[in-house]
């Protein structure tokens, strides 16, 4: 029961922060919100008994993906018009 409650909370955090990431005009802040969503999803993957995916997902979506987008924003401009 308790793991289902934590799962619901982490998915809720994912929903809220993906909404914030998509409506945010400052792209750097959007990357930050997107990283928080990724952490919430990593917790959800762990609760769904998928340790293999947690290992890949944390490294990919918190590390590599955020760095890629920050380099991309440095090259193309920070604010969405």
């Amino acid at each position, binding site marked *: 029961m308790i793991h289902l409650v934590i799962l619901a909370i982490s998915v*809720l955090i994912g*929903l*809220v922060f993906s*909404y*914030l990431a998509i*409506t945010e005009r400052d792209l750097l802040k959007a990357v930050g919100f997107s990283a928080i969503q990724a952490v919430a999803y990593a917790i959800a993957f762990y609760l769904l008994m998928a*340790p*293999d995916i947690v*290992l*890949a997902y944390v*490294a*990919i979506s918190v*590390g*590599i993906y955020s*760095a*890629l987008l920050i*380099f*991309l924003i*440095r*090259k193309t401009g920070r604010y969405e018009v």
Partner: protein
Amino acid sequence: MKRTLPLLLILALVVVFAYLFATKGVISAPTELRPLGKFYLEKCMIGGDFAAGSPEAVTSILWDYRGLDTLFETSVFFLAIIGSLMLFSFKVKEVVREQELTLVVRSVTKIAAVMILAVSASIALHGHLTPGGGFQGGSALAVAPLLVLVAFSRKILETSGLSLKRAIVIRSLGLMGILLTALLPLTLGGYIMQNLPIFPKYIADQLTSGSLIFYNVFEYLAVGAGFTAVFLLISIPEKNFVEEEK
């Protein structure tokens, strides 16, 4: 705040519909295994002729039962990285000297990079025993050069031996290793990507699960070096690229 109102509306809709669905019993959660999943779980370690020789069901599906899928996924990875490298095939003007971060950040990065290297190797090499494997270890490996790249500079990474050319060579070696491991059973009278009777299950009394450990090691090198090569290119500021003369 203009943005909070739609968010609250979405949340209220989700809660109301979840309550309605729960009382009507529209969405039910699965409690039983599917037959295919049951087969893989039964056979992965002790299944006679169907065994992959690994107690880790996910890795055995990844590189044995559905190995061809993963082989072609790896070729998609190869093509995506090659495409990215081709878009950046300019000459690079050498950077004067990039600004470095403070002493605290640099010291922490040194320690963390070494630890990430050790952890990623451990994840990849134990992939056939515990959760982990080539994909997971490789993506963890790519974080270490990325940290060095951000905290120090591209120059330091190149003088310590990890240039773009070398990263591409390591990635090609990994992909070549995967291809050779897949084709080797053909020369020994087996099928393509065959695992157990061709490759030994135990090497020096250690469970190595046939070809799974080779695939994991090669995929680890290919994924880690592929991501590193891309980040070595994307970290160059745009003004340092020089158009090639025609």
